[in-house]
């Protein structure tokens, strides 16, 4: 049974029976040189930098997966009120962070 997720305070159509507290997952990623050079060219003409879009969405998935792992270890079956944060921690590297409240729903 996959863990349910929502960014609302409950899982729609279900009731929360137990709270387990905050769960979170993060990952810090840097882009590799080849991609960076290509994106540098793309940066001249503007538009979407597809390599970065992909990199960030993959990283975010990773952060979410870590958050879900933590929820699972607490015996939760849902994470509610999920939030995301992105911060540039160093040159060319970004931290992707996901957090929410682990709960049991019925």
């Amino acid at each position: 049974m996959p863990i349910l997720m929502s960014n609302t305070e409950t899982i729609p159509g279900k009731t929360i029976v137990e709270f387990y507290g905050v769960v979170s997952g993060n990952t810090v990623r840097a882009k590799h040189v080849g991609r960076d050079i290509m994106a540098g060219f793309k940066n001249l003409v503007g538009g979407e930098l597809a390599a970065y879009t992909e990199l960030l969405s993959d990283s975010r998935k990773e952060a979410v997966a870590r958050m879900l792992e933590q929820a699972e270890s607490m015996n939760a079956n849902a994470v509610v009120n999920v939030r995301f944060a992105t911060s540039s921690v160093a040159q060319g590297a970004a931290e992707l962070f996901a957090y929410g409240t682990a709960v049991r729903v019925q």
Partner: protein
Amino acid sequence: MEALTQLGITLMVLTVTYLVGSAIERRHFDSLRKREARLRAFPTVTFERLPEGWQVADSGLAMGSTVVSLDYFKRFLAGLRGILGGRVRSYEPLLDRARREALLRMTEGAVADGYDAIVNVRLETSRLASSRGRGKGTAGVEMLAFGTAVKLVRQP
């Protein structure tokens, strides 16, 4: 002479990036308008509570994101604006485009997964630092849209 060549190259780059950048922008806006028209009937709302009478069968988190950047010419214009102050017009369409693209990707993903609506839609913007120029330049802006997608119980 050397300074003249330098100036010539800069002007050429400005012209080329202006032409290509504008073409890319125009094409993107066309595509956004078409896709938005197609998804007009799909409810995406920013409130958290479900409207009265909606019976939810299933729910999940929907997400869409994009990273965009400005062309060299418009960055140059924005730089000039930074000296004069005032409204930076060249950045406005860029952020608008990115936001609409992120929302569309979120919605298209939810439609593909068979959801009927998205509630509590939130938007986030973050700037990516460049690995060159000591992180001062920007490599682009990331726009993230997310919300809770719901499947509704069909009335018999």
